[in-house]
């Protein structure tokens, strides 16, 4: 169907030449899904854009050919290419918020390719568009036709994007990170939808993603890209079971799984991915590869056949059986600072915390409404303990995190640090206690002042709190950098000169500058690539252990939370639905929501790829009007009448394991009757 031979792309920016894709060979057969995986800058998206003939400004294909069913696409004229684009070959992009035109109705946008390619009238095209919207699972498509993109949820927008790409029934669909911006539960639905439609329309699909779990479950064959080159390709099962390339092997090893042994350090690849502007001599992965030899640095490896059919890899020192069982590095247990008695002490406690954001009323006399971002959450974090908060976007976990470090004042309820209230105080009264509560942010690019040098960034907290002399502060800044594995030379640089991983380390170092008692990390690694992510995770895990720091880790990534924390709380629509020891919650989830979330996580294991999963369906209801009774009932397979009437309270289902559910998946320690539940619910 689609044959790419020796494809190389160059982008010219002034006198700088970047080579994002070099010598890539790929084949896509009728009806199959080809996964292209790689990290940022690996050239995976650029390969997709090259097929679409839509390279960015200054970009061109310098060599190779792209054969689409007998038509050579390289060098094809503009008009001829336009007839193929959106008609025979379509593309779905990552971010549906920015990928839909904000000022045109979704119906018109879905109908547009039909007008362009089939010469249909707007009316006829709209009729087909409504049918297509129904096909991609949009409820009441006729009513949605006139909606504008901002009126739809992220999942619905992505369905619109897919409808738009498929309306002309293309033979090839290129999906570029189609689910990266979505929650796991929605991601699973979208990927399944794509799979079904592929079957139904008999098309072939290229699935471009960074997520190995997605590829395992949804691709027939996989191509792994690194530094602009295709390093390994083959049938999905072959590639994952008998991985040959050192990079693929290292990448798979560095992904934290839901079954990760937490005392074992995650495998991590040192260094960072190559700059596509650098000269390309030898294997691109050689500088970061543990098995690299002199030959790897001087000679570019040619693809050789692996064990399976069509399995090719380009590596001079491929992974062999001996290496497959790699050596594990355990965390040094003696480094744990907190003593037994100390560990029992409650450091941070959250009591019935609420946060409501008022929304402007309809009309002058309308009832004032409010979004209940956090609706009565209570939990405790003990000294030296790591507590995790997981949930889908919009569940209130970040609002909660900001209140924990007193960046936001709660509407009601309180946060206590060592028994003293820290919430709702004026900055003056909070004073030095603020130093004990520090935060690490998700986006290190936005949370580091671009006009400040790293030394100033690291010293600022100490200056504000009036700690030490200038020399002492400089000394501490160097120590902090060393603590996060960075050299002192970075002190004189600016944030934009650092890589994403380095910046996130600076964010961590800054949060540690005041030697806090509690560290709140909001999505600490979600902006980072897989190979960098494991470096930062190991660092955080090590620091937690060495310092006896209490930490709260907020993330949508269940595997990340599993690796970093001792106890975990699952949030849904502003409320805590399950809380308990991490292993307990992950192995014996008691709330149907927790179970569904865990089931939706894509796992990078080909043996599990075909097992059916019982995941959460549907979308998150609006926090403006949360469902009555149990908030989860609208998406819960077990919901009954009782769930609609009575809001469940947290009840123990085990030692340090509580759940707020009328029908928990694990037996309650003390069985409550319906009548008791009713009175308990009414008492609230």
């Amino acid at each position, binding site marked *: 169907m689609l044959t790419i031979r020796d494809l190389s792309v160059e982008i010219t920016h002034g006198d700088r030449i970047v080579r994002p894709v070099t010598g890539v060979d790929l084949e896509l057969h009728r009806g199959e899904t080809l996964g292209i995986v790689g990290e940022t800058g690996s050239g995976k998206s650029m390969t997709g854009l090259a097929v679409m003939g*839509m390279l960015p400004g200054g970009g061109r294909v310098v060599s190779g050919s792209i054969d689409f069913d007998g038509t050579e696409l390289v060098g094809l004229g503009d008009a001829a290419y336009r007839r193929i684009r*959106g008609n025979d070959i379509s593309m779905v*992009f990552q971010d549906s918020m920015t*990928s839909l*035109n*904000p000022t*045109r109705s979704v119906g018109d946008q879905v109908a*547009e390719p039909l007008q362009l390619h089939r010469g249909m009238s707007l009316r006829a095209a709209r009729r087909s568009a409504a049918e297509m919207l129904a096909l991609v699972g949009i409820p009441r498509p006729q009513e949605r036709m006139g909606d504008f993109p901002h009126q739809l949820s992220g999942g619905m927008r992505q369905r619109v994007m897919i409808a*738009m790409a498929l309306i002309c029934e293309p033979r090839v669909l290129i999906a570029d990170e189609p689910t990266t911006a979505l929650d796991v539960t929605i991601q699973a639905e979208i990927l399944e939808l794509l799979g079904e439609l592929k079957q139904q329309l008999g098309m072939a699909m290229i699935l471009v993603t960074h997520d190995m779990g997605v590829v395992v479950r949804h691709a027939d064959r996989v191509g792994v890209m690194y530094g602009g080159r295709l390093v390994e390709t083959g049938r999905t099962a072959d590639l994952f079971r008998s991985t040959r390339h050192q990079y693929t092997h290292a990448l798979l090893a560095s992904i934290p799984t839901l079954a990760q042994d937490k005392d074992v350090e995650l495998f991590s690849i040192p260094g960072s991915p190559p700059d596509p502007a650098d000269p390309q001599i030898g294997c691109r992965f050689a500088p970061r590869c543990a098995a690299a030899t002199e030959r790897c640095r001087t000679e570019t490896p040619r693809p050789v056949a692996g064990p399976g059919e069509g399995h090719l890899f380009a590596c001079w020192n491929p992974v062999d059986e001996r290496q497959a069982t790699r050596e594990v590095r355990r965390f040094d247990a003696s480094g744990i600072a907190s003593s037994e008695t100390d560990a029992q002490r409650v450091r941070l406690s959250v009591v019935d915390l609420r946060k409501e954001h008022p929304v402007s009323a309809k009309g*002058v006399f309308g009832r004032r409404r409010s979004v209940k971002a956090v609706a009565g959450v209570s939990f405790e974090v003990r000294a030296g303990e790591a507590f995790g908060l997981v949930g889908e976007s919009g569940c209130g976990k970040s609002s909660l995190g900001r209140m924990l470090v007193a960046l936001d004042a709660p509407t009601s309820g309180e946060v206590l640090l060592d028994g003293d209230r820290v919430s709702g105080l004026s900055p003056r009264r909070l004073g030095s206690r603020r130093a004990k509560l520090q935060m690490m942010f998700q986006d290190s690019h936005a949370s580091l002042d671009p006009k400040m040098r790293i030394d100033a960034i690291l010293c600022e907290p100490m200056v504000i709190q009036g700690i030490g002399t200038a020399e002492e502060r400089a000394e501490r800044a160097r120590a902090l950098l060393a603590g996060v594995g960075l050299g002192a030379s970075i002190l004189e640089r600016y944030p934009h000169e650092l890589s994403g991983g380095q910046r996130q380390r600076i964010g961590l170092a800054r949060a540690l500058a005041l030697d806090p008692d509690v560290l709140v990390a909001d999505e600490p690694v979600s902006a980072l690539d897989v190979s960098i992510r494991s470096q930062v995770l190991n660092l955080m895990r090590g620091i937690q252990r060495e310092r006896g720091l209490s930490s709260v880790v907020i993330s949508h990534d269940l595997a990340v939370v599993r690796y970093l924390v001792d106890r975990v709380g699952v949030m849904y629509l502003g409320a805590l639905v399950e809380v308990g020891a991490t292993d307990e919650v992950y192995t014996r989830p008691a709330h149907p929501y927790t179970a569904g979330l865990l089931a939706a996580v894509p796992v990078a294991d080909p043996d599990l790829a075909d097992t059916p999963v019982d995941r959460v369906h549907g979308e998150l209801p609006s926090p403006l009007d949360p469902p009555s009774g149990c908030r989860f009932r609208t998406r819960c397979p077990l919901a009954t009448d009782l769930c609609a009437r009575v809001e469940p309270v947290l009840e123990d289902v085990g030692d340090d394991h509580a759940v707020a559910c009328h029908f928990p998946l694990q037996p309650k320690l003390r069985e409550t009757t319906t009548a008791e539940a009713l009175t308990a619910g009414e008492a609230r």
Partner: protein
Amino acid sequence: MWFLLRRVLVSLVVLLGISLVVFLMLNLISDSPGRAALGQQASQAAVDAFNREHGYDRPVLIQYVDYLLQLLRGDLGRSYKLNEEVGTLLLQNAPRSAMLSLAGLVLALVIAIPLGILQAVRRGRFIDRAATSISYLLYATPSFLIALVLIGIFSQTIPLFPAEASQSSSPWVVFTDPRSMALPLITLAITNVVVFAQYQRSAALEQLGMDYIRVARAKGASERIVLTRHLLRNAITPIITLVGVLIPTLLAGNLIVEAVFNYPGLGLLFLNSLHREDYPVLLAYTLIGGALTVIGNLVADLVVARADRRIELGR
């Protein structure tokens, strides 16, 4: 609907404030309305008698309230210098000014929007750099100088157009006598194009980088369709806001153009009234300027909300 009512109420309060400030200021700088009306030769007794007769001897605030009540009746006062109702004077001149402004504005938009988008598409190329350089040059040039240079070239050196605008009292003179109105119109258009085109350029540049533009191309749309169907509506909102803000300034722009080309409009009336110290006319002109500012902003907000559905009025 509630939004509209609220905005109108707020606008009225703003206008009330403007009228108070302007009234007090004019009261401060003028020695006495009687002296202004009767001239330097009149005796003090006659001036005092005039002031008493017309209530100008009362406290300022009472005079202001009186003026407001008079405004409510639709009476803008009387020009003693021209011995004419201010309302009548304005009505005679306003349509001519409005037509000139409107024609100038439309001409400017018709040139500036495509030019700005073209500059964005050809960013950094010759056409973009040339247009930007010329824009800056013209932006820095006072409009009377532009007018004089135009007269020098197109009226003196090459006698294409007359140097004076049409003196006809018809507001349609812009269309009936385009030759005599060409230079005033071109002057107005130039001063506006240089501003609009630069705004349009940066707005279009921002939108060109958006993913939905890439998606439109991925659908197989030609560049013409990408620009007209997808880019234009998103890139035009800053211009709408700008036009709303500029509507009252166009009145001031007219002041210079009307003075240079001797076009009998509001601007010329204002200028002459300034020389004559004809305060009732000045007061009314300023109030109308204030009203136009408020209305221009309101209309711009409504149009922007209509063009971009993400904007919810009243939020």
